[in-house]
């Protein structure tokens, strides 16, 4: 569906505040809300299959909970939970491009920039790589 709002969701506080904003935006644009969890095991570790299975399981729990919460906030918004076997940034860009999304919404890491630098911040990478507008929602604290 063209014009989706794509939300990156990983169950953290930052992602939860982004969820509230994303629901409001989906309502305002009358757009579907795609809730995306992306994962890809480090290829250096070998033996990926069972690990991938567990990550997928975990992600399904995350997006299902997020979708339920979105419906609670606003039952009129159509929600599409997605679990994608790609790195988070690639998953968001891929899904947003495929859906010709209007906007990608993500939460920020919080108040420790150095942690973001070490872990590889998704918002940071998205801002550089995405051709679709990106909205970064501040951490609740």
């Amino acid at each position: 569906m063209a014009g989706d709002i794509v939300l990156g969701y990983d169950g953290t506080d930052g992602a939860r505040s982004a969820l509230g904003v994303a629901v409001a935006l989906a309502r305002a644009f009358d757009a579907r809300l795609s809730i995306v969890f992306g994962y890809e095991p480090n290829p250096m570790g070998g033996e990926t299959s069972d690990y991938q299975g567990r990550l997928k399981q975990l992600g399904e729990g995350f997006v299902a909970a997020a979708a339920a919460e979105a419906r609670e906030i606003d039952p009129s918004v159509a929600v599409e939970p997605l679990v994608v076997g790609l790195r988070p940034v690639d998953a968001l860009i891929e899904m947003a491009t495929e859906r010709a999304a209007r906007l990608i919404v993500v939460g920020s890491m919080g108040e420790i920039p150095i942690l973001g630098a070490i872990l590889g911040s998704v918002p940071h990478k998205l801002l550089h790589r995405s051709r679709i507008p990106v909205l970064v929602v501040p951490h609740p604290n």
Partner: protein
Amino acid sequence: MVTTAGLIGAEAPSRDLPPSKGLKSGALGLLASLVIGVASTAPAYSLAASLGFVTAAVGLLAPSVMVLAFVPMLFIAAAYFYLNRVDPDCGTTFTWVTRAVGPKTGWIAGWGILVTDLVVMPSLGQIAGQYTFLLFGANGLANNRFWVGFLGVVWIIVMTAICVIGIELSARTQVLLLGAEIVILAIFAAVALTKVYASHVVGSLHPTLGWLNPFHISSTGALAGAILTAVFIYWGWDTAVTVNEEAKDTKRTPGVAAVLSTLVLVGIYVVVSIAAQAFHGAGFLTANSNDVLNALGRDVFGNGWDKFLIVAVLSSASASTQTTILPAARSALSMSVHKAIPLRFGAIHPRYLTPAYATVWFGALSIVWFIGLSIISNEVLLDSILALGFGIAFYYAMTGYACVIYYRRLLLRSVKNFVFVGLAPLVGALILTWAFVDSIFVYSNPANAAGQQVWFRFVRFNVHFLGIHLYASGLGPPLIIGLGLLIVGLPLMLVWMIGHREFFRHTAEHADSLHNQAPPLTPGAAAPPD
């Protein structure tokens, strides 16, 4: 419950939706496979840890062992390649052996992987600690068992934390690091050989073709020990290459990355071992087996420049630590998913998305093991590497046999099947079994380990049986560590079997086709608390 109609599986969204991106990721896929395959074996670290011990066993024939040891690895890689088709993306020796032979054998194979990963950690900690001191010129501390152990423990803690938090180097950084490692080793070999021919280096030798002839090795015991040591330097190559190639880039002819990384690896090991022993002779390498690349680096490169070699060893050891901790945690996760060990080991950290519980356990056990070994053993490095050879030979051989058994009904359908699915894995497994068994006899005599430390003095026998002379007066540490840890798995499995029968109800299966994936081993596995 919300709709899950849009759920997309791990393999579902294909990577080549936009054509430009597809091309790029294809090209990166080959390079990444190559880098992962070579980086997982960690050439600089492997040479630093083992070259002196190979020359101790076979003297100037070390280069021939480098070539010879690759043969079983290559054959076992065929087993990995074909068994990889059974489970989606990839599996583990644990699941393959469970399918092919049965759950008890599979459990022991999985245990073999875990203890083998554990046994390499003291060696990694030792090399990392030692070479860090050498980098900063603290040569005294580099020979102090306590301080090397201390820094080694810090290293293991840091690397475990990195694996828990899930910090990953970008593919480009990995390519750069590995490239630097290989270039430094190549320059080292070139400079050493140039000096050997151009100037008179004390104790230098001109290389001869005889160094590559394994038939000159005097005793089969020396050959078995050397192969067990050399198997360690190729450890990690097969899994990384076969797994990543399957997973990343199915269109490319399989095997390109495998062939390239083979050439790179065998090339490095043969050329560097030739250059190293040409420079000062094999005796020098044996005498300096604890820090062989550092001792040589000083003389080959001269002061200052030799630090590059030390940096290469350190970066190589860090890659190797990563490719040990990550697979160990994933093997434990895999075993827990199939209910072969407690569910908690499959727990994923909700923030970092890593198998944190298993990772922390592995790190903690590594530290306990490293400290314990450092206290009771003078030759931590040697004991670890020889013991490691037992572990690797054990579970690689199991993988080879599993391949033959699993595909037994297909072997006679074509010549290709017979050779690649049957003969190669079988021969690989037999070579490793022979090295394993022969080394048991060799290392049951403590005098044959360079450490010459005697454990279990009460074990004494002197038997002549069918022309074989078995003699022991106490046992060597490598044998006790290598076999002991494998054997400890048996009682642990029996304890787990009480009350946890589910995994052990699996029955052996066999394949009817080379191309079909098998159904999941444990359908709808329960989720542990994350």
